[in-house]
């Protein structure tokens, strides 16, 4: 039996040395008192709500999308029928992440890639098709816009569709993401706005939601994307809160909305849960406690409604292996279990075919089934924070907090989260961890069943990559041209000018963005306006 060691000692995935067993005396004094609080009361490490999953079962929330907007619509409906309790829209990453239309040369040169990672949505018409017959007035929807520069378009599109259907934005539930970790750290795009322009966009979204969409979660910092790029557990925590500080400082600087409201807006985050069950569960407990500490100590905010962190978890995509892919069903289950033990508000389980492609319908169904089995067959929902009081878990929680604040401080000393993205320092931390991990695998210190070990495969069938549909590009191009032909051109031009103006002055960009979407301005045109106004981020990595 060999598990996680650094060659000498047993350690957690992030390298915290582990004892054979833990005693009450191992829990640091500073944490002992905290450990005795009840779930649902500050500092919340034991859980956001006292009755836990009994009254608030976690939301089954799966990333989904490919092909044409109608293909994505169909898949979302399938997932809702299967028991998903919220839905996520995924936009095609070639176009969305870069704000390119499909006829951009970079996209046209890779036309077969279009629609492979999400549905192509270039105008409000496409978003309308994607949302066809979906009960968006009362279902928690993720509008897409995972990427910072894409979020204003995705959100404004979703909201415009809602308005056109006669829904009151004041009552509309849902979320976007606008996450830096995704494209500034994990999956760096070819072209995107500089980090300071991104901060402006995110602060605009927070302010706009505060005024017009009180039930909407405006941004969601996704430590997930940092962790799946290589940041370990305490680094993921430290970087996530350093990111939150950037938002809060910007809102404070602007002085246009109460800081507590902004803190509430930033308090819906996402984490990655990987295979080290207890470290990862402890991480979620640590996160809730840290948020309470941060708000109290840095911003003098103690309102429990604000300092109560809400957590979405996605299981680690990078842990899903290419070899013997059915093993990934077990991995998904274990990571899902760790998340649920740590306490989550919503959960997505990666598809078992993650290492090969986006999820097939069957892989998607399995991800939902895993969650349903956890909810309905294991009695796990009966008691809140079942790990609370474990000498081991409480000690680990305290150790993670200590290390995470140290990493947070390191980031702050270098000018903050955005400065550390600009300089490439965070990329370096992530890359070093990844490199170590690969070496550990090569040296046999870390084993992966079916990959480094037990490699005989007697699978009864081949799991092959799901390739979606093959007409996404052609249809998207046709629709783009139709929009250009049919829209009220002078209205669209006027909206673009107004948007350009808003980019260049200090106004909130969102009203102009809503007007632009309503006037059927397209994704690529918005990208051109951004690029003209702000230029490109100077990416600190070289691959």
């Amino acid at each position, binding site marked *: 039996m060999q598990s996680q060691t650094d060659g000498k000692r047993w350690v957690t995935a992030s390298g915290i040395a582990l004892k054979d067993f833990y005693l009450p005396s191992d829990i640091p004094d500073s944490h002992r008192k905290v450990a005795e609080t009840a779930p649902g009361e500050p500092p919340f490490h034991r859980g956001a709500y006292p009755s836990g999953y009994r009254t608030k079962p976690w939301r089954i929330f799966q990333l989904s999308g490919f092909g044409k907007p109608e293909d994505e619509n169909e898949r979302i409906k399938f997932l809702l029928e299967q028991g998903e309790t919220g839905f996520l829209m995924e936009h095609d*990453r*070639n176009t969305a*992440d*870069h704000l390119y239309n499909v006829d951009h040369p*970079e*996209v046209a*040169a*890779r036309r*077969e*890639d279009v629609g*492979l*990672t999400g549905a192509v949505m270039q105008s409000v018409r496409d978003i309308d098709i994607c949302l066809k017959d979906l009960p968006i007035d009362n279902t928690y929807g993720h509008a897409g816009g995972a990427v910072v520069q894409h979020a204003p378009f995705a959100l404004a599109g979703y909201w415009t569709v809602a308005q056109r259907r006669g829904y009151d934005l004041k009552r509309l539930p849902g979320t976007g993401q606008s996450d830096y970790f995704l*494209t500034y750290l*994990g*999956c*760096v*795009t*070819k072209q995107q706005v500089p980090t300071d322009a991104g901060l402006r966009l995110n602060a605009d979204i927070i302010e706009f939601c505060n005024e017009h969409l009180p039930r909407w979660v405006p941004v969601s910092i996704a430590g997930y994307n940092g962790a799946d*790029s*290589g940041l370990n557990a305490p680094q993921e925590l430290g970087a996530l809160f350093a990111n939150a500080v950037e938002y809060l400082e910007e809102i404070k600087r602007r002085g246009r909305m109460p800081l507590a409201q902004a803190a509430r807006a930033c308090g819906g985050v996402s984490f990655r849960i990987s295979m080290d069950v207890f470290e990862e569960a402890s991480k979620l407990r640590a996160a809730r406690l840290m948020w309470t500490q941060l708000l109290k100590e840095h911003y003098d905010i103690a309102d429990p409604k604000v300092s109560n962190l809400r957590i979405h978890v996605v299981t680690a995509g*990078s842990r899903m*292996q*290419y*070899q013997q892919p059915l093993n990934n069903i077990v991995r998904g289950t274990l990571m899902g279990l760790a998340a649920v033990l740590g306490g989550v508000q919503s959960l997505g389980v990666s598809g078992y075919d993650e*290492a*090969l*492609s986006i999820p097939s319908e069957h892989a998607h169904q399995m991800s939902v089934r895993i969650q349903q089995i956890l909810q309905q067959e294991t009695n796990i929902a009966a008691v809140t924070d079942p790990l609370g009081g474990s000498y081991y878990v409480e000690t680990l929680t305290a150790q993670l907090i200590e290390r995470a604040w140290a990493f947070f401080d390191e980031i702050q000393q270098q000018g903050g989260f955005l400065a550390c993205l600009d300089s490439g320092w965070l*990329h370096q931390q*992530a*890359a070093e961890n*990844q*490199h170590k991990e*690969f*070496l550990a*695998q*090569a040296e046999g210190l870390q084993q*992966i069943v079916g*990959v*480094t070990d037990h490699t005989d495969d007697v699978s009864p069938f*081949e799991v*092959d*990559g799901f*390739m979606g549909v093959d007409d996404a590009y052609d249809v998207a191009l046709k629709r783009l041209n139709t929009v250009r032909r049919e829209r009220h051109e002078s209205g669209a031009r006027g909206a673009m000018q107004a948007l350009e103006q808003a980019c260049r002055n200090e106004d909130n960009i969102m009203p102009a963005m809503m007007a632009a979407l309503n006037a059927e301005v397209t994704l690529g045109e918005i990208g051109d306006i951004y690029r003209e106004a702000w230029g490109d981020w100077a990416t600190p*990595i*070289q*691959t």
Partner: protein
Amino acid sequence: MSDVTSPEQNKRILMAKTGLDGHWRGPTIVATALRDAGFEVIMIGMVKAEEVVQAAIDEDVDLIGLNIGGHIDVAVRAVQSIQQSCQGVPVFAGGVVPPHAKRKLEALGVEVYPPGSQLPEIVSAARRLTGLSGALPASD
């Protein structure tokens, strides 16, 4: 510093990403491992097929590594361009390559290293494909 290996052995590898998918984790780890094995690794980022060809010519490389992050047809086009314009330069590939895509690439003579491939495997493939034989010299 003494000349342990002569500069003649400095083989050059071009690394390119054919998709617009910016996952840099895998390619960076592979590039670093190749550097640590003594290769000069020239990275060119997310590029189109004709850009790979142009860089391969100007940089006079011995091997081309493609990171594939999308539809197999895009990768196949890149491989065909390379084979047409850089005759004799071998190509190997990694990234998200499901079995059906792997078979297509292998039919074109491209060695494929899907996720889960171990670094020593990739390094020894690079040595073999650039005409260096035998095991890695022990590092000094």
